[in-house]
């Protein structure tokens, strides 16, 4: 019997604790925003921007997602939201086809659906808040790498996991650009780091000793960039082996200033969250309709809409000169 009492106590404690946050407001819109993975610094800064927009608009923001990238969990959470009857669902899709079945169900239930960061199938959502096309990212990274190496030399890629959808998509475009434009450059290896900074550091160390002519490491997941930079710094090869990648300014500032990392490419992730919430609210209120050409989002001004893609603008290259102006 004792075990039962303990269990009951556990449940009771949980509920008592949960009540602290209870509030009666049930008027405004509820916008549900799902990251690919919750603990990721990238999505934390998206949430920052989304929170700001939610405050300005007086809507309620739900931010929930898997704790690690998991396509099946994303579907479960969307289905939770459907039965909960939220007004808008905005998803960064871990897997295009996988999530679309759940999103179509949400649309059928009268919920407005958006995607941001990574798109689902077009018929499963109204708009995609597009921070940069995969092509834009892939070409941007490849062009920046070529610029740093004067179009010549060996480079390697550190990716998240071999199965990560976004990274696969970017790599496709990196490789296409490489084949078409830079015949004298060579991609010598692709290594996964499981989104672990420590593992990226080990992988970069091995890459440098295995490929003595390596001139550049391109890390295409956020923990990979500081990991690779630390490895290059410890190998005493700062400047000899250049580091670029997709990363957040705060995690990379020190390496950029030390001259280890040459540049990181990223869009403004806070703006991405802000724009997504504004677009979601406008969609729910009927202010944003298919076919619109522009969209005005609060203090950020007007954004261009191309087809059903709301464009955030070009990715940004952070370097020594400008990185201190950003805090995310």
């Amino acid at each position, binding site marked *: 019997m004792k*075990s039962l009492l303990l269990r009951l106590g556990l449940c009771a404690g949980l509920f008592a604790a949960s009540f602290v*946050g209870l509030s009666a407001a049930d008027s405004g819109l509820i916008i549900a925003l799902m990251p690919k993975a919750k603990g990721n610094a990238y999505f934390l800064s998206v949430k920052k921007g989304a929170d700001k927009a939610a405050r300005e608009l007086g809507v309620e923001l739900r931010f929930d997602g898997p704790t690690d990238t998991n396509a099946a969990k994303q579907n479960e959470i969307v289905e939770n939201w459907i039965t*909960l009857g*939220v007004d808008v669902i905005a998803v960064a899709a871990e897997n295009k086809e996988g999530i679309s079945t759940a999103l179509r169900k949400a649309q059928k239930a009268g919920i407005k659906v958006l995607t941001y960061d990574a798109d689902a199938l077009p018929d499963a959502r109204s708009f995609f808040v597009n921070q940069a096309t995969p092509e834009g990212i892939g070409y941007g990274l490849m062009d920046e790498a070529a610029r740093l190496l004067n179009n010549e030399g060996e480079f390697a890629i550190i990716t998240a996991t071999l199965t990560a959808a976004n990274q696969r998509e970017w790599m496709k475009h990196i490789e296409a650009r490489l084949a078409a434009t830079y015949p004298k450059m060579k991609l010598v290896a692709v290594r996964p780091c499981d989104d672990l900074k420590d593992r990226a550091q080990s992988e970069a160390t091995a890459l440098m000793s295995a490929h003595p002519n390596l001139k550049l490491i391109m890390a295409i997941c956020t923990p990979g960039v500081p990991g690779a930079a630390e490895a290059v710094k410890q190998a005493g090869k700062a400047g000899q082996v250049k580091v670029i990648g997709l990363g957040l300014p705060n995690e990379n500032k020190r390496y950029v200033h030390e001259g280890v990392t040459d540049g990181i490419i990223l869009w403004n992730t806070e703006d991405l969250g802000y724009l997504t919430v504004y677009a979601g609210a406008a969609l729910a209120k009927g202010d944003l309709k298919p076919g619109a050409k522009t969209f005005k989002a609060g203090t950020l001004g007007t954004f261009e809409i191309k087809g059903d893609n709301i464009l955030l603008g070009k990715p940004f290259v952070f370097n020594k000169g400008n990185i201190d102006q950003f805090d995310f």
Partner: protein
Amino acid sequence: MSIAGKKLTGSAPAEPRPSGSWALQLLFRHETLLLLVLVVEWLLFYHYGTTTNRRGLVVGFGTLDRQFDILRHSCEIGLLALALTPIILTAGIDLSVGSLLGLCAILFGKLWHDGGLSIATAASLTLVIGAGAGGLNATLITALRLPPLIVTLGTYSLFRGLAEAITHGAVTYTDFPDSFLFLGQERWLGLPTQAWLFLLVAVAMWLLVHRTVFGRSFRAIGFSPEGARYAGLPVERRVALGYVLAGLIAALAAIIYTARLGQAKADAGTGYELFAITAVVLGGTSIFGGTGSITGTLLGVAAIAVLRSGLATLPVVLRLNAAEEMSGLLTGALLIVALAGSVLPKILSSLGARRQAG
């Protein structure tokens, strides 16, 4: 109450008890306690997790849709837990079921997409492959008498690794026909389609483990392998069967998973083995083998599924946005409490005995 009701259609297996009041024995059975917890858990979520939204719709935990979602989402882990029960009854373990699910999912996708086979043929072949992979575990464990923990730790890496190697991590099989997706996403005769398969397997496993001489030998082996051998049981063959069966069921879970998500990818089922083992142990099956039941496992699966999805419905009512973390935390805590609860009476009585003796 649909989920608990559905899963409880089988009555608790009658086991002879040496002494004491029959009613009291039943009350203190692990399954009874777990059922009570499940009911309380369910009622609490029903009460606090259901609300009427602005549009006047009843939303949250208490809706029928929600209950069906719980059932739909627990089918794959439930199948793996069912497959693990006989194995754990024999004091074995299989860590590779989640990885095997991933391998079977992409092989199924590959056979259908690249091999040009019909869905039915591909599914049948996948089941054969799953059983074969289970056979690999079985061979290593029984023919070479290797510890199952380590063998399946090896195949845990091997199966997932093969799935990644075959697809280079990149290929995702999609565009399955609607007739196949019906299995994972629609309802048939009122229930989510895959729930019927799950129930079928559950009933079959219950019959096998509790109603056949064959199945009872699992417990005998777990209780004392030497004793079972002296009693003339073909211990190796019975144990091997458990692992082959687990492979077969993992393949079935892979097909259902593919139908539910509409895609087959090398990371399918990552981490599922932990949930499945948790459900089995929470259900009262001893990890040392010998005791446990299919009913207990079903209750364990239900308790975890209700907890997970109940916590996920709380946000709208209670504005709690950490369902993932909370459910992990509470599942872990629940497991510890259940374990401690299961041994406490034994320890208390042994202390009492020592005091008397002293």
